[in-house]
């Protein structure tokens, strides 16, 4: 027989864990990583430029610094006077730096990401495959339209789906994300009011159950914001809202389903009252994933609503890709929608822009962006829609709601659930820190969830719930994944209620433990400065 004489033997773990400190500070696959400025030396460079003195007029060898005014120096006085101190790293050093940092990150590809209202769900790989097709990925917005008919076709087809799914009249595809979409909708309302000669309507009503961006949007567009209270069951106080309507009210911004995770059941009646009082209804559609295929916002009297393609339609976000926030409009707001948009005729797809808009779109309030919007996200969203179909999209909403209710009912015995008695929740479950002993609050639960290997849920929002924990599991989590998360949150909640002091110092297993947020806010270090070397300081 052939003997292995290398001396290798399988290791047997010693009992106990007396882990020694390592020389590097690394702990096996958990790597300590310094700032890039501390790794890279300004004396080195990863790129080997040729000196090219002929064109710049530079002297031999010295290409990095100036000033060297010369006939070839087109920057004149703006020429760099001294090195700016960027670290010079080679390609492998750079790749390793960012890959090491990325290992300290949490991502939807690693595990359940329960951030409420953010809809952190799986981004199907088919979306990515389609978005990388050269005919979509390699086009330029200024290409002649007859060379990008396929791309324009994607925009047009997606637009038709969005209009159909929402029961609205038209859609502006160009807004780049949710808040940008809100601004688009509010600017259309403003334009419509001015066209009617009612620019004096300066008040926008925003319920407490709305998204935090809503009042910011209205204020940014020049309106005065007035709060409308929430009822104890977590919905907008319809009576208070209707009572406030009048000739100074431009409209309302309402989030449905709202940030308490509840469907605004009175929305149709609210819309009718707002319209009767001469106002418009903006709906924040960030939570459309809970009702897509089940409810058409157009049937509820909505005048404008943004759709987060990066939430409902599974395009990446949160560092994984840009957002995209198309806005659907009612018939009466359609004339004021922004340019450009794609139209279809017998000869193909056309871009309707300022030069070609003509009288039909003379009332458009202008542009939200230079070009058409997030083409890469359009391709992904349409792929998602076509791969699910109408029945599949309906199931998306049903499963999102089912999963959230599963979380809510699995934990309501250990965590206070303020709206659990209001009936089923929609796509997100909300808990409070009611019942925790003195000194324990939501942040301790969140930090301990990090130790359990989960990204924490949304904390302390909505404001109407004390110590709010807003959990949105999404429809892409399996029962097994949900059970593991529920088990982790239950365990942490029980430790909090028992006053377990180790929670106050969590996380214990993250690359960094509990940070001093107060010190970070009072004395923030925003700029890296080269440490002064002792010998230089003495000179």
């Amino acid at each position, binding site marked *: 027989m052939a003997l292995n004489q290398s001396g290798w033997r399988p290791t047997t773990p010693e009992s106990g864990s007396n882990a020694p400190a390592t020389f590097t500070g690394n702990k096996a696959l958990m790597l300590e990583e310094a700032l890039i400025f501390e790794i890279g030396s300004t004396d080195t460079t990863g790129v080997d430029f040729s000196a090219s003195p002929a064109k710049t007029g530079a002297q031999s060898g010295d290409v990095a610094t100036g000033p060297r005014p010369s006939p070839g120096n087109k920057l004149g006085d703006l020429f760099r006077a001294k090195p700016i101190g960027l670290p010079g790293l080679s390609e492998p050093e750079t790749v390793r730096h960012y890959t090491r940092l990325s290992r300290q990150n949490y991502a939807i590809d690693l595990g359940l990401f329960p951030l409420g209202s953010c809809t952190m769900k799986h981004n199907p790989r088919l979306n990515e495959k389609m978005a990388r097709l050269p005919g979509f990925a390699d086009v330029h917005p200024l290409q002649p339209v007859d060379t990008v008919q396929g791309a324009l076709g994607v925009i047009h087809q997606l637009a038709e789906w969005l209009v159909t799914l929402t029961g609205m009249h038209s859609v502006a595809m160009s807004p780049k994300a949710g808040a940008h979409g809100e601004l688009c909708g509010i600017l259309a309302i403003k334009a419509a009011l001015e066209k009617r000669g009612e620019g004096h309507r300066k008040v926008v009503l925003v319920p407490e159950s709305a998204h935090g961006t809503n009042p910011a949007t209205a204020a940014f567009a020049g309106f005065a914001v007035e709060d409308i209270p929430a009822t104890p069951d977590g919905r907008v106080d319809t009576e208070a809202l209707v009572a406030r309507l009048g000739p100074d009210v431009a409209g309302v911004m309402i989030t449905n389903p709202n940030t308490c995770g509840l469907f605004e059941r009175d929305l149709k009646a609210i819309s009718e009252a707002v319209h009767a009082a001469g106002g418009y209804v903006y709906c924040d559609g960030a939570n459309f994933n809970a009702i897509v295929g089940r409810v058409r916002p157009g049937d509820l009297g909505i005048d404008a609503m943004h759709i987060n393609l990066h939430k409902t339609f599974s395009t990446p976000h949160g560092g994984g890709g840009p957002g995209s926030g198309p806005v659907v409009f009612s018939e009466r707001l359609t004339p004021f929608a922004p340019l450009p948009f794609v139209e279809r005729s017998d000869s193909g797809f056309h871009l309707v822009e300022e030069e070609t808009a003509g009288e039909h779109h003379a009332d458009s309030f202008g542009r939200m962006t230079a070009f058409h919007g997030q083409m890469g996200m359009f391709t992904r969203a349409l792929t998602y829609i076509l791969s699910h179909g109408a029945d599949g999209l309906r199931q998306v909403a049903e499963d999102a709601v089912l999963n959230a209710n599963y979380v809510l009912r699995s934990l309501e015995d250990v965590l206070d659930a303020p709206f659990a008695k209001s009936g089923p929740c929609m796509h997100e479950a909300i808990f409070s820190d009611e019942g925790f002993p003195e000194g324990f609050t939501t942040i301790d639960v969140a930090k301990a969830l990090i130790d359990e290997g989960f990204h924490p849920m949304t904390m*302390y929002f909505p404001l109407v719930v004390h110590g709010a924990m807003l959990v949105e599991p999404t429809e892409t989590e399996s029962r097994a994944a949900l059970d593991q998360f529920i088990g982790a949150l239950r365990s942490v909640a029980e430790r909090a209620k028992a006053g377990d002091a180790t929670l106050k110092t969590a996380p214990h297993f993250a690359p960094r433990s509990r940070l001093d*947020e*107060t010190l970070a*806010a*009072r004395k923030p270090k925003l700029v890296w400065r080269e440490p002064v070397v002792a010998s230089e300081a003495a000179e």
Partner: protein
Amino acid sequence: MSRYFTEDHEWIRIDGQTGTVGISDYAQGQLGDIVFVDVPEQGKGLSKGDEAAVVESVKAASDVYSPVSGAVIEGNAALADEPALVNSDPEGEGWFFKLTLSDPSELDSLMDETAYEAFVAKL
């Protein structure tokens, strides 16, 4: 010297025509660690209820409203370097600004200490 409180948790201490304004101990407790305070400049005219100062904690930024009308005499410069004074001594060293009252009768609409304690107890 007498002290009054608002429902928005500002206090004002009256000394002749001069009022010193700050936020209550209850308010600092709710805000948590204060990290930044923006006080009004000398000479600024304020009406009762105007946004007079901004107080920022790790948790949130809040406006501080003027309990009465008047002209600002002085903002508390010490808070720029040491916002934590609002936490450690909210109703003393952690005062926000002083102003000359233009209408002392506005004080009648404010709460005294007993009334404010009862108000807070119900929150």
